[in-house]
């Protein structure tokens, strides 16, 4: 079995594929944190049109399967509308489109986590800030959001771990990440099915479990004590 393992790792770029998974995850995580924060600012803003837009966006995108979004970026955005995201090679275009899709989808869950975080901040905090004369952007940016972020690190970690697993869906548009390689491998070497499944399952356990444990520990450390 050790020999078979060695040949598998020699013949296929397993670590390379997992590296693509990590890249997809990190880029989408950064993007979705930013877009999710913008969305939550819209959802609690004093301008009704923005609140309406934020709610509509969340309700539409959250109820769409991620697979539909990812397939739509490739089939619709690229192959029909000709959007290439500034890339020329097929795999780069697919990668960037996948990141775009993941950001659009994951931002909904970041936004919803942050909104529940805002609800945990005590009313007195923003009342005091308003009494000092701070405007909406200052209350949100300086007082409420920093505390909200600290209280939702746990839920946000869950969102990011779900994102890690969701990046496998990029296989649907041919991005060379872990799941696509696994599909190719088990079709070629069907007799080694369980070994290959084990490698990839373990790979994902290694990516997700420590993230959960570390971020869970951080969330306890930085939680606002009340």
């Amino acid at each position: 079995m050790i020999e078979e393992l060695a040949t598998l790792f020699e013949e296929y770029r397993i670590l390379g594929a997992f590296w693509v998974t990590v890249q997809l995850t990190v880029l989408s995580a950064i993007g979705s944190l930013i877009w999710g924060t913008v969305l939550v600012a819209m959802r609690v803003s004093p301008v009704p049109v923005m609140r309406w837009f934020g709610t509509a966006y969340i309700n539409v995108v959250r109820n769409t399967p991620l697979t539909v979004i990812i397939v739509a970026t490739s089939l619709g955005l690229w192959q029909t509308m000709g959007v290439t995201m500034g890339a020329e090679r097929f795999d780069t275009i697919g990668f960037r489109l996948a990141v775009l899709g993941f950001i659009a989808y994951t931002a909904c869950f970041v936004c919803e986590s942050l909104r529940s975080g805002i609800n945990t901040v005590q009313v007195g905090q923003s009342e005091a800030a308003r009494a000092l004369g701070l405007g909406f952007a200052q209350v949100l940016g300086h007082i409420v959001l920093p505390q909200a972020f600290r209280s939702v690190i746990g839920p946000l970690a869950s969102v990011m771990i779900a994102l890690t697993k969701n990046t496998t869906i990029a296989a649907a548009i041919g991005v060379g990440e872990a799941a696509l390689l696994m599909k190719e491998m088990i079709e070629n070497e069907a007799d080694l099915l369980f070994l290959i499944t084990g490698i990839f399952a373990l790979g994902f356990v290694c990516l997700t479990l420590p993230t959960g444990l570390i971020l869970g520990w951080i969330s306890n450390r930085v939680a606002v004590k009340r």
Partner: protein
Amino acid sequence: MSSAVLYDTPGPKAKARNVLYAVLFLVLLALLVWWVLNAMAEKGQLSWLRWQPYLGGTEAWETYLLPGLQNTAKAAGLSILIALPIGAFFGIARLSDHRWISWPASVVVEFFRAVPVLILMLSANVAYSQFADFPTDTRYLYAVVTGLVLYNGSVLAEVVRAGILSIPRGQSEAALAVGMRKGQLMTNVLLPQAVTAMLPAIVSQLVVIVKDTAIGGAVLGFPELINSVRPAAAYYFNVIPTLIVVAAIYIAVNFVLTSFASWLEKWLRTRKRGTSVVAGDMIEEQAPGMRFGGGGGI
């Protein structure tokens, strides 16, 4: 804290400013929509000819969309029906007082929550083609359902556990005090109350399952709704309209399920004071290694 606490009630000046922001935002949004529509018109995706198959007739629905939707419903329905008892079994096993029962159950649940559902589907598909002799379409259905059951069974195990733990301790104490055994306590006192508490979470999980069937369609080739996008778009030359119609179907189905879940949750909360409820929010973001609904402010 409600969001209205974040800003003062607008006075005349602030009202004028808010109107200005609203107008600016609407102009930006209108520009964006105009730009998108313009690009679509340029590629000829707006013409009635492209939309006619979906809006002006039933043939496209009968040939492509409805059979796909039927398969989506079949896979999702089978998955939740099989996953529920499995989830209940593992959820209760994790609560067992015996280490040799609770530990293996925990390992299984955490493992299947950590592995992407696509990996499970792919593996099941090849396993069935190796060790069983199903026709291709049936094999795809079985592979998709297997993947969904393994993943959602472990998530539902956590829901069941949270449901049982949400019941006030006085209930168990009272049951033990009148001389019930542990098994009687579970079947006669805890489970009946936990089932009602879990209903909203179970309906929300159904949304996740419906969304995840699409993975099997796009990657494995299971002939469900998203799998009908390519053939339909190739036949009618209308990629964008097909994608929009398919997305709209998913959104409508899931929106109804989500609304039903939150209505159920509200109804359960108001029906009787002190009833415990496991909320369905954000259920798909439950990560391995983390307590259900725990970690932060939720």
